[in-house]
C-alpha cells in the first residue's frame, strides 16, 4: 500500500498571525539600566517589580485622578489552552509583564511566553515549553513572569528549568535544570537579573523538599551558586531542627516569589516559604530556620548575611515568600513586608533588626506578636479536633504584591479576610506526595477583603476600600495619584491614592490574580493587567471557585 506524504510537522505559530520576531530592544538591557529603571526609564517596566526596590510604583502621571474616569481598553491579548495540561482546572494568568521600549514580554500558564507589541497587542513571537501534565504542582498551573536582559528572556519552567530565549525570535538559547521534579519540585517564580546573574527559586514546599535559590550566568547558563533555605546538620540554623532524623531534608522553605535587591548593600531580600509538613509541627520541633523568613543574601556568593523569621515554627502554612519592599524613612534604609500571618513588619534592611510590627489583618487569632517581635501562639492545629484560625492558610495577604508610593509615603496592600478549620492528621513522608499533615476546610461564610492604605511610620490604616470578596491580586501605585487593583469577580479598579475613593472600574470578565503594570509608548501611558482566575481559589477565596476562568491581557489607555 502506498501513502500520501503528509510532510513534516510544523510549529503551530506558523499558522497564526504571529510576526515571528520582535525589535532588538532587549539587546541593551543591562544591570546598569535596571538599576535606574524608575528614574531614567519610567516608560518601561524593566524588571519584575518595576525596580529593584519592589515598590511597584510607576512615576507615570498622564493617567491621573482627574482623567482616569475616561480610561478605556486599548487592546486585549487572549490565548486559551490546548490539550491536556498539568492542573488543567487550576491554570491562572498570574504574570507581571515586562516592557522594554514598546515590546512587552509576558509568560502565561503551562510554559507559554509571548512577545507583544505593547502599543497594539500584536503577537510578535511565542515560545512554548513542553510541560509534563503529571508535574507536581501545589497550587496551580501558573507562572509569575519573565526577566529580560542582554538580548535574552529568562523563564523558569514548571519542570524546574531555567530557559534563556532569544528576545528577538523567542528561540531557546540554553536550558538548565535547577530542581528535581521527582522530589516534588517545580518552578513558578519570575527570575531576577542582578549583575551578570539570573536568580531563581524553587516551588514545592507542600511536598517536603528543601528550598533553595540558584544563580546562573546570563551569558553562558553556567551555574554559579546555590543557597539552601534549610541548613544541613552542623550548618548555622541547624540547631532549630531536630537533631535526629531527616526533617531538615524535607523542611520546605521554598523561594517561589521574586526577591528585591539593594545595590548599595549588594543584598538580595528573598522571602522563604512554609516549613514542611505545613501543619504538623510535631515532626520538626524548633524554630525551623530559614522557613517563613526574609533572608538577606549576598548577590555575588549566595551567602545568607542575616535573616528575620516572621513565624517561628509555623503550623499554619504562613509562607513569607511575598515581597520585601525597600524604602527610606528619615534617612533609614528600611524593608516593609506584609506577611500571611496578618502582621506588617518594618525592618532595618542593613541588619534585619525589627523597627516596627503591626497587624494589618482585621482578625488574627493564631497568635500575637508584640512590639519587640515576640510571638505568642494562641491557636494551633490539634489531633482529633478541628481548630479555627485567622488568617487561614492562604494568608491575610497571599503572594500577590503590595505597592508603596513615595508620592504619598503609604503602602497599599490587598487584604484577604478568610479563616479556616484545620485538624492535624499525621502522615508518613513519601517523596513527591503531598505532605501537609492536616485536613483543611477554608471558610465559605464571613469572609471579605479590602485594599488598605497603611502608614509605615505607625503601621496604622489610613484608608480602606472594603470588598465582599477577598482581594487576591497585586496593587500598582502611580505618579498620577492612583492605585490600581483587581477583584476576584473581574472588576479592575482605580482608587485615589490619598482617599481610597473609587475613580474608575472595568469588568474584565474573569478574576484577577496577577500584577498590573504601567508603561508608555509614543507618549501614551498604558495600564496593563493579565486576567485569568485560577490557582488555589479554594484557599484564598472559596466563594469565588465558580468565577469564570480566563486568559486575557488588557491594556488600558486614555482616548486620543
Amino acid at each position, binding site marked *: *500500500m*502506498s*501513502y*500520501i*506524504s*503528509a*510532510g*513534516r*510537522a*510544523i*510549529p*503551530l*505559530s506558523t*499558522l497564526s498571525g504571529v510576526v515571528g520576531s520582535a525589535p532588538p530592544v532587549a539587546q541593551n538591557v543591562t544591570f546598569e539600566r535596571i538599576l535606574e529603571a524608575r528614574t531614567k526609564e519610567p516608560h518601561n517596566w524593566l524588571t519584575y517589580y518595576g525596580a529593584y526596590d519592589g515598590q511597584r510604583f510607576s512615576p507615570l502621571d498622564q493617567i491621573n485622578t482627574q482623567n482616569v474616569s475616561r480610561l478605556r481598553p486599548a487592546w486585549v491579548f487572549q490565548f486559551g489552552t*490546548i*490539550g*491536556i*495540561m498539568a492542573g488543567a482546572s487550576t491554570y491562572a494568568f498570574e504574570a507581571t509583564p515586562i516592557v522594554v521600549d514598546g515590546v512587552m514580554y509576558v509568560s502565561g500558564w503551562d510554559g507559554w511566553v509571548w512577545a507583544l507589541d505593547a502599543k497594539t497587542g500584536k503577537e510578535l513571537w*511565542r*515560545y*512554548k*515549553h*513542553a*510541560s*509534563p*501534565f*503529571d*508535574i507536581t504542582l501545589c497550587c496551580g498551573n501558573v507562572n509569575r513572569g519573565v526577566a529580560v536582559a542582554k538580548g535574552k528572556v529568562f523563564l523558569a519552567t514548571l*519542570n*524546574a*528549568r531555567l530557559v534563556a530565549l532569544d528576545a528577538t525570535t523567542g*528561540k*531557546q538559547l540554553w*536550558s*538548565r*535544570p*535547577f*530542581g*528535581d*521534579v*521527582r*522530589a516534588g*519540585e517545580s518552578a513558578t517564580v519570575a527570575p531576577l537579573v542582578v549583575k551578570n546573574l539570573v536568580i531563581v527559586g524553587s516551588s514545592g514546599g507542600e511536598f*517536603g*523538599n*528543601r528550598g*533553595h535559590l540558584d544563580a546562573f550566568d546570563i551569558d553562558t547558563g553556567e*551555574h554559579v551558586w546555590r543557597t*539552601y533555605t534549610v541548613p*544541613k546538620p552542623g550548618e548555622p540554623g541547624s540547631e532549630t531542627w531536630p537533631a535526629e532524623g*531527616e526533617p531538615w*531534608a*524535607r523542611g520546605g522553605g521554598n523561594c517561589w516569589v521574586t526577591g528585591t535587591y539593594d545595590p548599595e548593600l549588594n543584598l538580595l531580600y528573598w522571602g522563604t516559604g512554609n516549613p514542611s509538613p505545613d501543619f504538623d509541627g510535631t515532626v520538626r520541633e524548633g524554630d525551623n530556620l530559614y522557613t517563613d523568613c526574609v533572608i538577606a543574601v549576598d548577590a555575588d556568593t549566595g551567602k545568607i548575611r542575616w535573616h528575620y523569621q516572621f513565624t517561628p515554627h509555623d503550623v499554619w502554612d504562613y509562607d513569607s515568600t511575598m515581597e520585601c519592599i525597600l524604602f527610606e524613612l528619615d534617612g533609614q534604609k528600611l524593608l516593609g513586608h506584609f506577611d500571611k500571618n496578618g502582621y506588617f513588619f518594618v525592618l532595618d534592611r542593613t541588619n534585619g533588626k525589627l523597627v516596627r510590627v503591626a497587624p494589618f489583618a482585621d482578625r488574627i487569632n493564631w497568635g500575637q506578636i508584640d512590639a519587640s517581635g515576640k510571638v505568642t501562639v494562641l491557636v494551633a492545629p490539634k489531633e482529633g479536633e478541628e481548630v479555627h484560625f485567622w488568617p487561614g492558610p492562604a494568608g491575610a495577604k497571599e503572594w500577590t504584591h503590595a505597592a508603596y508610593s513615595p508620592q504619598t509615603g503609604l503602602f497599599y496592600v490587598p487584604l484577604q479576610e478568610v479563616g479556616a478549620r484545620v485538624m492535624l492528621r499525621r502522615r*508518613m*513522608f*513519601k*517523596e*513527591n*506526595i503531598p505532605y501537609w499533615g492536616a485536613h483543611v476546610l477554608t471558610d465559605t461564610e464571613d469572609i471579605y477583603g479590602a485594599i488598605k492604605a497603611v502608614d509605615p511610620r505607625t503601621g496604622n490604616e489610613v484608608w480602606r476600600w472594603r470588598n465582599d470578596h477577598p482581594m487576591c491580586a497585586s496593587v500598582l501605585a502611580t505618579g498620577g495619584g492612583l492605585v490600581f487593583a483587581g477583584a476576584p469577580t473581574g472588576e479592575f479598579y482605580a482608587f485615589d491614592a490619598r482617599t481610597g475613593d473609587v475613580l474608575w472600574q472595568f469588568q474584565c470578565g474573569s478574576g484577577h490574580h496577577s500584577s498590573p503594570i504601567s508603561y508608555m509608548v509614543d507618549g501614551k501611558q498604558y495600564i496593563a493587567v493579565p486576567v485569568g482566575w485560577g490557582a488555589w481559589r479554594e484557599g484564598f477565596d472559596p466563594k469565588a471557585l465558580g468565577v469564570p476562568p480566563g486568559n486575557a491581557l488588557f491594556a488600558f489607555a486614555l482616548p486620543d
Partner: protein
Amino acid sequence: MTTEMTPQTTASIPRIEIPPVIRELGLDKQNRAVIGRLILTGGFGFAAEGPGGRLYAQVRIPADELIWQPSVIIMPHEGELELELINDDDNDHAAFLPSNGDFQWIHLVQHSRGSATLSLDGPGCYWFGSPYGNDEGRGLVGVIAVLGETPPQARLDRPPQPRP
C-alpha cells in the same frame, strides 16, 4: 503537493497488550461499551534508540478505531524523538504534538504518512492528540512518557528519600 511513499518502519516498537477487562467490556472498540473508545487503549510502544541517543518511534491511526497505536509512546530518556505518524484510516486526522519551542502540528489526510521531531527535556507525561472534530474525546489522545531522573546537578542535597 503530495507524493506517494512506501511505508517504512523507523523504529522497532514492541507492543504491550492492554488489560483483558477492557477488551471484555468492549471499551477498546468504537460505539460498543461507550460512545467512543476509552482513551489510551491503543497499547504501549517503546521508542528505539539510534546513534547519538536520538530516539525513533512510530504511531498509527488504524481504520475506524480512532485511536493512536500505540497510545503511549515511551521514551527511555529525555531528548529528541523522531516520530513517524501514519494514518491508515479512511478519514482525515491531524496531530498536535508537544515540543520545546512550540506545539508541532501535522495534517494527516487519509492514508498519509508524515514525521515530526520533538524535543522533550525531562521526565513526565506529555499529551498529544488529534484536533479534528471530537477525535480527542473519541479516543485519539496519546501520551509520550519520558523516563529518567533529573540530572544530578539539579537534585537536592539530601539523603535518598522513600518513594511511594
